[in-house]
């Protein structure tokens, strides 16, 4: 295969530095295309996110090529920020990102450790450092995903232990870049405030990806894919009901994009089961597979508007 070089190991001593690097071949060698294609196919929408990921992948590939040709630049910083509303695919994309970094040789194990404040910050003096270090050790060789990272920082409480976790994180993000990639995630506006108050984080983040809300059409497609994967289908009228559901649900509190639709689908399945059971007769495969509009329309989302207290039960 041309004069390509192994991606995971630097050239051995005494070996001649090649004059050229075939980027195509390097690309093929990492088998990254399969991952990117999978990402395109399996994740509905998210066009800007996918574009950013391809950019990052190309950048890292070129960094590899530069390394091959003897450029002695420091390893690239890989820490990232994923911002966007709940249910917009941040965790899913983080998982894919871990695999991509693994294929490109920037993550030795390719695993993702997903945590929130409670996993990092302790309850009493001396509790936080061991907790944070424990998490960091588990994430070494892979990707540490900190969801709602801004909860680490509580300016209203001077003695908040979150600051201790932040300091340890910052140090590891600087000194062990080859061992660990950190992805900070959360709502866009709150993350912006967080970065503003913690410039140390901002300066260590190399890539910022914003996750837009899904459109109504995308949410419909996502739900239909969920159904397909679970061997269900929506009847024509059910699809229409779902369309209306999406419009209504978006206006109600605690809307969480794809996550809300996953919940809706799960509830519809329960209702379908009850409906079939009450038929009390023989059912065929089609009946067992099909969600009818009544399974959707029974949702409270279609009922009169309600107070916020009930919001958590909305599905």
């Amino acid at each position, binding site marked *: 295969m041309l004069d390509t070089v192994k991606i995971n190991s630097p050239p051995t001593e005494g070996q001649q530095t090649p004059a050229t690097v075939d980027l195509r071949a390097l690309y093929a060698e990492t088998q990254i295309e399969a991952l990117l294609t999978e990402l395109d196919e399996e994740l509905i929408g998210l066009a800007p996110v996918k574009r950013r990921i391809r950019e990052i992948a190309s950048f890292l590939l070129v960094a590899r090529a530069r390394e091959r040709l003897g450029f002695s630049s420091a390893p690239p910083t890989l820490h990232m920020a994923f911002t966007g509303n709940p249910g917009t695919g941040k965790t899913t994309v983080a998982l894919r990102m871990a695999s991509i970094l693994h294929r490109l040789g920037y993550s030795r194990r390719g695993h993702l450790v997903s945590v929130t404040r409670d996993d990092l910050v302790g309850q009493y003096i001396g509790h936080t450092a061991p907790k944070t270090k424990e998490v960091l050790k*588990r994430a070494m060789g892979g990707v540490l995903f900190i969801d709602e990272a801004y909860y680490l920082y509580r300016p209203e409480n001077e003695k908040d232990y979150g600051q201790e976790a932040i300091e340890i994180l910052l140090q590891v993000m600087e000194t062990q870049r080859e*061992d660990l990639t950190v992805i900070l995630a959360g709502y866009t506006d709150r993350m912006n405030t967080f970065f503003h108050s913690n410039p140390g984080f901002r300066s260590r983040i190399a890539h910022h990806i914003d996750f837009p809300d899904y459109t109504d059409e995308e949410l419909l497609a996502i739900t239909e894919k969920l159904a397909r994967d679970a061997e269900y289908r929506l009847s024509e009228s059910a699809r229409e009901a779902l369309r209306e559901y999406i419009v209504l649900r978006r206006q109600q509190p605690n809307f969480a994009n794809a996550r809300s639709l996953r919940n809706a689908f799960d509830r519809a399945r329960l209702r379908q089961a009850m409906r079939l059971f009450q038929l009390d007769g023989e059912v065929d495969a089609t009946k067992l597979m099909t969600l009818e509009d009544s399974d959707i329309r029974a949702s409270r989302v279609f009922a009169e508007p309600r107070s916020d207290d009930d919001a958590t039960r909305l599905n």
Partner: protein
Amino acid sequence: MRVTQGTFSFLPDLTDDQIRRQVQYALDKGWALGIEHTDDPHPRNTYWEMWGQPMFDLRDAAGVMSELRSCREAHPGHYIRINAFDSERGFETVRLSFIVQRPAEEPGFRLERTEDRGRMIRYRLHPYATDKPSGSRYGK
């Protein structure tokens, strides 16, 4: 003398890269890694000081290596060993244990013999290191 406890004591002292590879081997087996240190190398000194709890659920050796660095900084003159614990049924014990730091000078042991009835001898192994109080052996 050279204390030859541990799995690899007859080889030249392992480099950090070699240590990392052994740690990774243990992690890939699903074993938990513990770091322990002592200034009393008696062969029946079973319980060395633990440098923190054994580390469970790690994927990569980097975490263990950074703990090892801290332990070395805190105890530059001690023996340090890395233990790998296997929780699998039928083992539930240490599966690998090797020394990753030893003092520059190892004074060794005195064998004390107490004559007993007939030609019987009772033996006692005495580490010269323990002549000094704990904490002041091997310089530090």
